[in-house]
């Protein structure tokens, strides 16, 4: 396990920060708030050219063959800037999912197109109840003449208008155990029968949509991981997504702390910088503390996934829960300490505040992950440390 960034990671971090500062300026962010699609195809192309879309994918398919920890470094920078792009969706639910669970044909077909930016993937998983659990997946998929016909409505779908393809979780069989009978499909977004509706969601830099699917035919060759095998795969890929999101959150938290601390040094009230008041100092100290422990857990989780550590799901749940809580705490303090200006639309703090909400909610909120941990403790009582054995697929 590495606790200090290596030279390559430092380079990646600097490169990412410089690139984002140049290509994703405030005017771009502000323009994206009102953009229905939510990303810039020009910027996407540049991101593809940097090789970031295939950062962790094998070189055989045109990827850069770097590690999950490297990806976390990159995502931190994106989270710090709130870079509006379908990056996590595509990298995790396109590249990493297909690379880990796809057939050789699927890898050959899709990975190069994902890496060069041609294919943009969005995960369409949640439905009416908004929770990530097998009982919540009720979209029907009926087998018919060598293909499946999908009908149902997916909600809370991010990057839906940017996507060329959806990864859809649908029910191929009704069973007593809701975990059985779920299948993952790669669905072409241009199909007739797919209708996308904006939902008016809070995080305007990661907007959410309704994706209505009516009798859309999907060939068997677009099934990922096999019929009725979807849930365990989904659980594991959601773990990876939660880890990526944790990295993004840590980057965002860093922006919130830096920005808030800078403000308390500049802002004068009662003739002195407000940062000289203990009431402000102590809140900043608590923010720094929250960031420190969020980062520690996030780095542990990223290293655990990189090393294919059996404890990885545990580490990710801890990181996701702690980062989700901390990001919300920090943006709450960030708005408060900024005072009136922090409550305006014009200041960027609310964008982070809203991102904190959308990030905590996605792929299981803090409560959900604490429950996952509790289940683990239930199963593995009697050890001498917190750690135990989970099961984690190679990523």
């Amino acid at each position, binding site marked *: 396990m590495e606790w200090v960034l290596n030279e390559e990671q430092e380079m990646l971090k600097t490169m990412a920060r410089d690139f984002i500062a140049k290509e994703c300026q405030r005017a771009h962010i502000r323009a994206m708030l009102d953009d229905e699609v939510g990303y810039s195809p020009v910027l996407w192309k540049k991101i593809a050219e940097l090789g970031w879309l295939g950062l962790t994918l094998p070189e055989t398919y045109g990827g850069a063959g770097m590690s999950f920890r490297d990806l976390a470094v990159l995502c931190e920078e994106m989270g710090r800037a709130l870079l509006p792009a379908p990056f996590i969706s595509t990298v995790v639910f396109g590249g990493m999912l297909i690379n880990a669970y796809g057939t050789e044909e699927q890898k050959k077909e899709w990975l190069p197109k994902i890496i060069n930016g041609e294919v943009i993937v969005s995960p369409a998983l949640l439905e009416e109840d908004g929770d990530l659990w097998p009982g919540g997946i009720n979209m029907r998929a009926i087998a018919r003449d060598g293909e499946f016909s999908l009908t149902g409505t997916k909600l809370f779908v991010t990057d839906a208008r940017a996507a060329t393809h959806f990864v859809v979780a649908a029910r191929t069989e009704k069973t007593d155990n809701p975990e059985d009978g779920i299948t993952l499909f790669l669905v072409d977004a241009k199909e007739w029968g797919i209708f996308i509706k904006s939902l008016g969601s809070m995080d305007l830099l990661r907007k959410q949509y309704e994706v209505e699917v009516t009798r859309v035919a999907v060939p068997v060759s677009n099934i990922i991981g096999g019929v009725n095998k979807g849930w365990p795969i989904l659980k594991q890929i959601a773990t990876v997504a939660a880890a990526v999101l944790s990295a993004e959150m840590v980057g965002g938290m860093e922006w919130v702390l830096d920005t808030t*601390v800078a403000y*308390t*040094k500049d802002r004068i009230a009662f003739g002195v910088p407000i940062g000289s008041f203990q009431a402000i100092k102590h809140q900043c100290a608590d923010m720094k503390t929250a960031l420190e422990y969020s980062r520690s857990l996030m780095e542990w989780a990223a290293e655990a996934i990189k090393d294919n*550590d059996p404890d990885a799901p545990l580490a990710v749940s801890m990181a996701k829960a702690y980062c989700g809580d901390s990001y919300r705490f920090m943006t709450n303090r960030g708005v408060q300490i900024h005072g009136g200006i922090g409550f305006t639309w014009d200041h960027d703090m609310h964008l982070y505040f809203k991102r904190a909400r959308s990030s905590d909610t996605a792929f299981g909120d803090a409560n959900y992950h604490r429950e996952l941990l509790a289940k683990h403790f239930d199963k593995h009582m009697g050890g001498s440390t917190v750690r135990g054995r989970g099961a984690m697929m190679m990523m």
Partner: protein
Amino acid sequence: MAEEPMKLVAFRKEVRAWLRANLPRGWGTPEFKIPESMTLERHQLGMWWVKKCYDAGYTGFGYPKEYGGVERPVEERAIIREEMARTGTPGGPYSLGLLLAAPTILRAGQEWQKKRFIPRILSGEESWCEGFSEPNAGSDLANVQTTAVKDGDEWVVNGQKVWSSNSRYADFGVLLVKTDLQAPRHRNLSYFLFDCKVKGFDRRPLRQMSGESEFGEMFFDNMRVPDKNMVGELNRGWYVAMTTLGAERGGGGAAAAAATEGGRRTVGAGTLDLVELAKNTKRYGKTAWEDSHFRQQIMQIAIESEAMRYSGVRNIARLRALRQPPGNEVSISKNFSAEMRQRRGELSMDIIGAYSQMMRGSPLAIDDGDWVYASLRAKGATIEMGTSEVNRNIIAERILGLPR
């Protein structure tokens, strides 16, 4: 860590085996009753333990060999610390010499002081107490009122100290006293080492809210201290004290991330204790573990324990890469661990409900009142070694650079 190198895995096993063989018989079981704080038995048990650890090469790190220092790779030290935290050890309260006196003497002391005192601190031969806080100088430590007046080659000390850890049986003490009545704050104090056996020194235990007396009051009535016992320069004692307070906080926070609570429980291993407690406690007809409110909070403690652990490991790696000693960031870990200890304490009390009122000795006490004791004792954690408020100021001013 799943991929801990084989060498370290072997070392961890070695430490575990050593602990099994050397901890007092019955340690960690209900049969073993640790003597009450501030009793002679407890003191002797602690000193015996330090000596054992030193003889095994498990303590005494970070000091030159000539002063009795022991060399060992940082990773192995971390393993020793973790393993000791896991079992708990009888040594907790007796580490003041190790936490405070030895680092201070090493950094600011004279050559004779280093040679005379450090080896016997490391080996557990001599124990130390702390003479900093006074009734009117706690967080505002610079307000020390105890005076020392020069008389020939000696200083005559008068005044009172309070909250002096381990004062009852200590052989020596460190002392912060006012040596200049006119000079401005921070430039009027000097730092001394004193022998507890001299005339004019008196001490008595101070009972704390948990019912025990880990700390004491010390009284100086014309106590004489040789001039050569001064550490650092005359009237610069404040700076000597400040440079080493961080070491104590580091000891209370990051280093001892799983600080033993009265030598019984550790924070890290405490998660499993809590799960077990919740599973064994019935509330309104079902176990507390079945109540998601309790379950969630216990898991939050589990998360925070691991966060602390990885933050500790991460900081060690980072400081090593930068070749720097621990700095102000110990204020972060000190606060976090202290506050977490309190959260954990409160949670355990919430879980056992009405039984949280039953103290040790009560026929209704759960686990011999350990939970209640730990919870009460934890209240001191955010006050001792720099209050949470003082540490928050340090984080804000010295790490984040906010104006003073």
